[in-house]
């Protein structure tokens, strides 16, 4: 009994020890659990989410571009494409091979797809082909069981209904390049396109929209189990342009007979650009559908640079269209009055040099308005020597030459208005007085774009407002242009005499563009011709009787014309440059006439930009 009692006590002790071990073990387990769930909980939570959440992005619809009347210029069309998930295709090549019998698909493209597939994980869908027709979609759909891993996906493709007519203004979209990647998630969407040129490029940020995303819970195999969260995508914003699409088309059409030309039609008061054409044009749809190597080669090798928007990036000597600047500069500094006359003898002697007027015999006695009308060179030679290049340059700059406006298209170029300082800085040489003389008639170093010439003309005839050109009127319903422009502070009487001269250029029998006058009452135009020398005909050639027309195309003169209409209360301004086209009065003025006539008939300034309702489009999932 005693023995048993001792054993009982011993057992109680030892059972207590075992119990203590159990308690400790439980404490260790509890501690470990707390460590995993508290201290390391965050890390494991992340790991857990990575395990199970697949984020799927939802592509936003790209904002549309419409003209001032709401006519679509850039829209999104349905795009059916075939995607393949390599993992699900037993044999990628065999699978693709089956396509060749169904749609237009060949070995070269099979190779391309296989190449792409090697670069990405095997569960990532790859685009096999796109732009399928309904017929093709139907064919694929029927045979889908036979095409393991393939699926038909509905996306969007950019379409430009006006094709070549708006190619330069609207631009086009293209695949996101590595340099474009800036961390914005939408850019990483497969097949996402961004603007490469034109409005598509400069307003890309607004039209892009914001990608939504859908968090899908996936199982260990990546199969989707359920949707956790959806962050709705926001479609891009609509861009309403100042362009009148029909006028734009007319303008492009009108230039099409020339090898290389450009024109701008704008509103002298508001700065709205109604049309802006550059010949030769290109069809931006080529780029969205995938341009072939031959087509690309053709575009690139064309000496007239079809991809350049010459209306804003073509820089030409303004020629005689610059004479208004020289005249105004002289008027403002007081070296000339509207009544100042100069006697043109056909040449102007300055030191040892002789400068010829374009008219061999000379124009005789002329005042400012008539000098403009007849485009006498001597008159401006003389004024320029009195006031100097810097005065002329200052005036030209006030009229928007030699500067960028921060225009709605990034391809805009600044042109060049030389000064003494500029020449010293650029060439390290002193400005020569003779250079002032050639500058006075828009030759020499001076360069300007057709857009700048239109702006210059606008500022001349709108009463001296420093108007700037613009294309984008509204982003959705947000107004993007100012109601008023600052005054330049130029005396009305000076502007009036310039206007009088420009009126006479067209409407006086002695004017250089009389042949291109508009006879319709109330629609008359004023303007100024310009013929810019590209290559100086030297003495030897002159002696041999070589005329400009005999030179090869690239050495011929540029034909220019700046115009406005109607003469009474002017509103519309046009500038035309026909590269190596010959004379301004013979080639450029008739174009300007047609453009201004058409513009006045359509009268786009009569109504404000129409804001069509921004339609809510259904979201698409990629």
């Amino acid at each position: 009994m005693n023995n048993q009692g001792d054993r009982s006590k011993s057992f109680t002790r030892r059972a207590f020890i075992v119990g203590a071990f159990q308690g400790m073990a439980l404490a260790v387990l509890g501690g470990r659990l707390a460590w995993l769930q508290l201290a390391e909980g965050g890390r494991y939570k992340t790991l857990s989410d990575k395990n199970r959440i697949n984020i799927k992005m939802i592509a936003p619809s790209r904002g549309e571009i419409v003209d001032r009347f709401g006519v679509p210029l850039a829209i999104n069309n349905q795009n059916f494409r075939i995607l393949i998930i390599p993992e699900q295709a037993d044999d990628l090549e065999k699978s693709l091979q089956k396509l060749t019998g169904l749609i237009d698909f060949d070995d070269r493209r099979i190779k391309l797809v296989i190449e792409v597939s090697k670069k990405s994980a095997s569960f990532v869908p790859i685009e096999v082909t796109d732009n399928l027709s309904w017929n093709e979609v139907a064919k694929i759909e029927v045979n889908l069981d036979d095409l393991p891993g393939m699926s038909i996906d509905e996306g969007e493709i950019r379409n430009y209904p006006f094709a070549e007519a708006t190619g330069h203004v609207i631009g086009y979209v293209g695949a996101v390049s590595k340099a474009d990647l800036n961390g914005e998630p939408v850019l990483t969407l497969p097949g996402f396109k961004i603007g490469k040129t034109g409005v598509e490029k400069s307003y890309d940020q607004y039209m892009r929209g914001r990608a939504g995303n859908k968090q899908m819970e996936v199982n260990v195999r990546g199969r989707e189990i359920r949707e956790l969260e959806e962050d709705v995508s926001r479609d891009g914003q609509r861009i309403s342009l100042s362009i009148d699409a029909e006028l734009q088309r007319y303008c492009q059409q009108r230039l099409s007979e020339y090898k290389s030309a450009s024109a701008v039609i704008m509103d002298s008061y508001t700065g709205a650009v109604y049309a802006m054409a550059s010949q030769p044009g290109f069809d931006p749809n080529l780029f969205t559908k995938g341009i072939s190597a031959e087509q690309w080669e053709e575009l690139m090798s064309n000496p007239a640079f079809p991809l350049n928007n010459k209306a804003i990036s073509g820089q030409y000597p303004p020629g005689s269209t610059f004479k208004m600047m020289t005249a105004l500069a002289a008027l403002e500094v007081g070296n000339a009055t509207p009544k100042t006359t100069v006697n043109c003898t056909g040449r102007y002697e300055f030191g040892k040099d002789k400068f010829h007027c374009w008219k061999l015999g000379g124009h005789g006695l002329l005042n400012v308005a008539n000098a403009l009308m007849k485009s006498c060179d001597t008159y401006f030679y003389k004024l320029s020597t009195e006031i100097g290049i810097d005065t002329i340059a200052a005036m030209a700059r006030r009229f928007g030459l030699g500067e960028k406006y921060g225009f709605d298209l990034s391809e805009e170029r600044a042109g060049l208005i030389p000064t003494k300082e500029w020449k010293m800085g650029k060439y390290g040489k002193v400005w020569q007085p003779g250079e002032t003389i050639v500058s006075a008639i828009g030759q020499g170093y001076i360069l300007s774009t057709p857009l700048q010439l239109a702006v210059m003309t606008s500022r001349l005839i709108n009463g001296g407002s420093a108007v700037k050109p613009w294309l984008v009127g509204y982003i959705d319903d947000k107004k993007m242009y100012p109601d008023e422009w600052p005054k330049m502070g130029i005396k009305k009487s000076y502007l009036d005499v310039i206007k009088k001269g420009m009126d006479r250029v067209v409407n006086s029998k002695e004017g250089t563009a009389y042949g291109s006058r508009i006879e319709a009452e109330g629609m008359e135009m004023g303007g100024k011709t310009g013929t810019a020398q590209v290559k100086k005909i030297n003495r030897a050639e002159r002696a041999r009787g070589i005329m400009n027309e005999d030179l090869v195309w690239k050495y011929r003169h540029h034909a220019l014309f700046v115009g406005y209409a109607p003469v009474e209360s002017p509103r519309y301004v046009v500038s035309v440059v026909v590269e190596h086209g010959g004379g301004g009065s013979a080639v450029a003025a008739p174009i300007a006439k047609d453009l201004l006539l058409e513009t006045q008939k359509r009268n786009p300034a009569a109504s404000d930009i129409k804001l069509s309702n921004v339609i809510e489009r259904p979201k698409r999932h990629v």
Partner: protein
Amino acid sequence: MFDTVRLNTDQSIFQKLQNLGWGMVFLVCLVACIGFAALYSAAGGNIEPWASKQIERFLVGLVGLIIIALIDIKIWYRLTYPIFIIGFILLIIVEVMGHTGMGAQRWIDLGFIQLQPSEFMKIAVVMALARYFHAASQEEMRSIRFLLPSLIFIFLPVGLVLLQPDLGTSLMIVMAGVAMIFLAGAPIWLFITGGVLTAVSMPVAWYFMHDYQKQRVRTFLEPESDPLGAGYHITQSKIALGSGGIEGKGFLQGTQSRLNFLPEKQTDFIFTLWAEEWGLMGGLFLLTLMGLIFIYGIAIAWNCRHAFGRLLSMGLIVNFSLYVFINIAMVMGLIPIVGAPLPLVSYGGTSMLAVLVGFGLILSCNVHRDSKLPRMQ
């Protein structure tokens, strides 16, 4: 010390039922319910296929538990060696003609149930040891000649289980057996010496291990080195547990487990699923319940007036707790994966039945704590 009322050993069924130890039954049911909830969640919020069967088995087992508890401890005392021998024969049968499951032969297919004799053998070993030490005097407990034969009860079945091969169960039987010898009063120096010898023999054991066992040890030591291979289970289990946080992801919201990132979520990794969905709170709650069961079991052992009952109930509780520790430590990456279920919670027929039989015996010790058992064989 001699309570006259308690000395009355002839209790009616009603009295026995009154003295059953319903607190323990309640705790067991509660833990089992946690298992049902976890299995329901493991099936994606579905009672099929696991929860329903588990409930069925539990209810059957619960009835068995009560019947076993009501059977006089003297009968169990007498049946001890026959049970051990039957269990041993079943183990041999498994070895000879058992079906292969999970790369090891562990099952006997009885038609309606696949029986795992090793589960019952653990109980039989504890019973046999309890009986062997029941009448031992303190002198005997100090004599090696008396102690050595007891090792037969341990190493005969362990040898067979190792042949299956089932390292986890073998180790558990050894540990439970060692605990029994300790509780019976063997000298402390024996255990110290044994511990040292075990440590020294580890490399030898490594040499005899199967490849999959070696791999498990390696994986345990460095799970992240092979996240998609052998270390996958541990890594995913830790992710699941860790991502549960304090409050858990919520019932039926355990993404890791339910999305099949977790292997064998309904059996060995059920604790992970539970703690992922219910967080630290749920995990600690379950551990606390287990702790209460241990305490209850120890209290029963303490109150038992005969050595057989003391050793039996204590041994079975140690056995149960070893299961709990090994399973939970395993899923938390504290020890290598050995393939041990969480008793009462994991899905599995034999395990559930064996555990309930064990609790039946513990409660029988409780009901018959004042019975007089023969001191000598």
